[in-house]
């Protein structure tokens, strides 16, 4: 523990409070982006660069942009509806007059329980790490995080991907928002033309790096989503954008995962096991498909895939 850690801890608390109490949702979104950046630094300090990569790419990047855009839509509709009596939100407007004592009490009770649980944890430092380190040579993957995600606990990852697919399909079931085209900005277009290919390269690099150091499908997928979103925001004329979030692309990761799990598992004798010597190739195949699907899911959250 040193000055940096103390500052980060304090900063996280302050930012979280400020984001919740901000006077507008947009300001809260920007505070959330700052929160995500500092949280990524916290993960680095806790010795988890993989999580830091994911937090920076997803939490501060994609989710931050998503919140900012959604907040802006929300604000402009709220202001717009102040002129017309008809609120255009699909859910009933919450009552502001009653204080939410029950909700507050429940939240406090949850926080107290969590605190007790955390204080009661015996430091297991090293036990899990040792177990993974002992089993690592058997997994034929050099990086322990990737080995855990895609070899020892592959079933958990499979279910997570299924959940992501369901979420993406649910988002697409909602009516697509109206998108008025934004005016062309040549500087932005040029910047995007330079950075989108670079981001694609970084995504593939992170995917490849995941086998031996920090990286992997989630981080690569998030950076890939960032690349697609940059292209979309800059109004780059890419016809394939709307095809990117179609269900076949969304389901690709899950399909490949199941396929490899069944076929390789049949050859290796257990479900989701990999035959000896094939592990790295199979894991890379699965991760590549996952990367595409995760990116498509994140982009699908932004909606508007049917608009021009």
């Amino acid at each position, binding site marked *: 523990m040193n000055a940096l850690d103390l500052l980060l801890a304090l900063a996280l608390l302050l930012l979280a409070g400020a984001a919740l109490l901000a006077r507008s949702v947009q300001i809260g979104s920007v505070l959330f982006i700052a929160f995500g950046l500092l949280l990524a630094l916290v993960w680095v300090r806790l010795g988890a660069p993989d999580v830091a990569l994911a937090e920076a790419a997803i939490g501060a990047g994609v989710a931050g942009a998503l919140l900012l855009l959604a907040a802006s839509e929300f604000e402009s509709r709220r202001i717009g509806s102040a002129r017309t009596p008809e609120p255009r939100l699909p859910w009933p407007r919450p009552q502001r007059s009653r204080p939410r004592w029950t909700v507050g009490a429940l939240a406090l009770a949850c926080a107290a329980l969590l605190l007790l649980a955390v204080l009661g944890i015996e430091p297991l430092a090293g036990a899990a790490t040792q177990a993974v380190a002992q089993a690592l040579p058997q997994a034929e993957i050099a990086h322990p995080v990737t080995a855990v995600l895609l070899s020892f606990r592959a079933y958990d990852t499979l279910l997570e991907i299924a959940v992501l697919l369901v979420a993406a399909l649910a988002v697409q079931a909602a009516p697509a928002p109206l998108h008025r085209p934004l005016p062309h900005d040549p500087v932005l277009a040029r910047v995007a033309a330079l*950075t989108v290919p670079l981001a694609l390269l970084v995504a593939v690099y992170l995917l490849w790096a995941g086998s031996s150091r920090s990286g992997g499908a989630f981080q690569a997928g998030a950076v890939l989503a960032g690349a697609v979103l940059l292209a979309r925001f800059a109004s780059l004329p890419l016809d394939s954008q709307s095809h990117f979030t179609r269900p076949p692309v969304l389901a690709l990761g899950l399909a490949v995962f199941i396929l490899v799990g069944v076929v390789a598992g049949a050859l290796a004798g257990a479900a989701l096991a990999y035959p000896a010597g094939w592990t790295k190739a199979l894991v890379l195949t699965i991760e590549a498909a996952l990367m595409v699907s995760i990116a498509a899911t994140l982009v699908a959250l932004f909606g508007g895939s049917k608009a021009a």
Partner: protein
Amino acid sequence: MLEALTWLLLALAALFFSAGTLGLLRLPDTLSRIHALTKADNLGLGLAALALLLHAESWAAAAQIGLIWLLALAASAASGYLIARRCLLESQGAAGNGHNGHSGLSTLPVPASVPHSGPQAPKAAP
């Protein structure tokens, strides 16, 4: 010798970084703060990156540090332009026409073209 150079570079980097951050805090309005952020901080980052890559553990690592600095420079320049333009739009919209947001966007002068690299005379702005 290399040590002394590294200390010097880091000291300069610290100076520029602090200047940029102080500018962000003390300068009167948003547009001048953008200046402090995009210019001073990135120069500080460049000096620090130079100091760090002199002691990188491999040529690949040194190249990576250089690439990160270049990317940060480009991203910072682009975001400075984008934020400043958006900021100008907001102040225009709030001051003049409060009704039509889109015409506000089009009245702001946009560079007619981004000049291609090479000996080509830039086109005149509209």
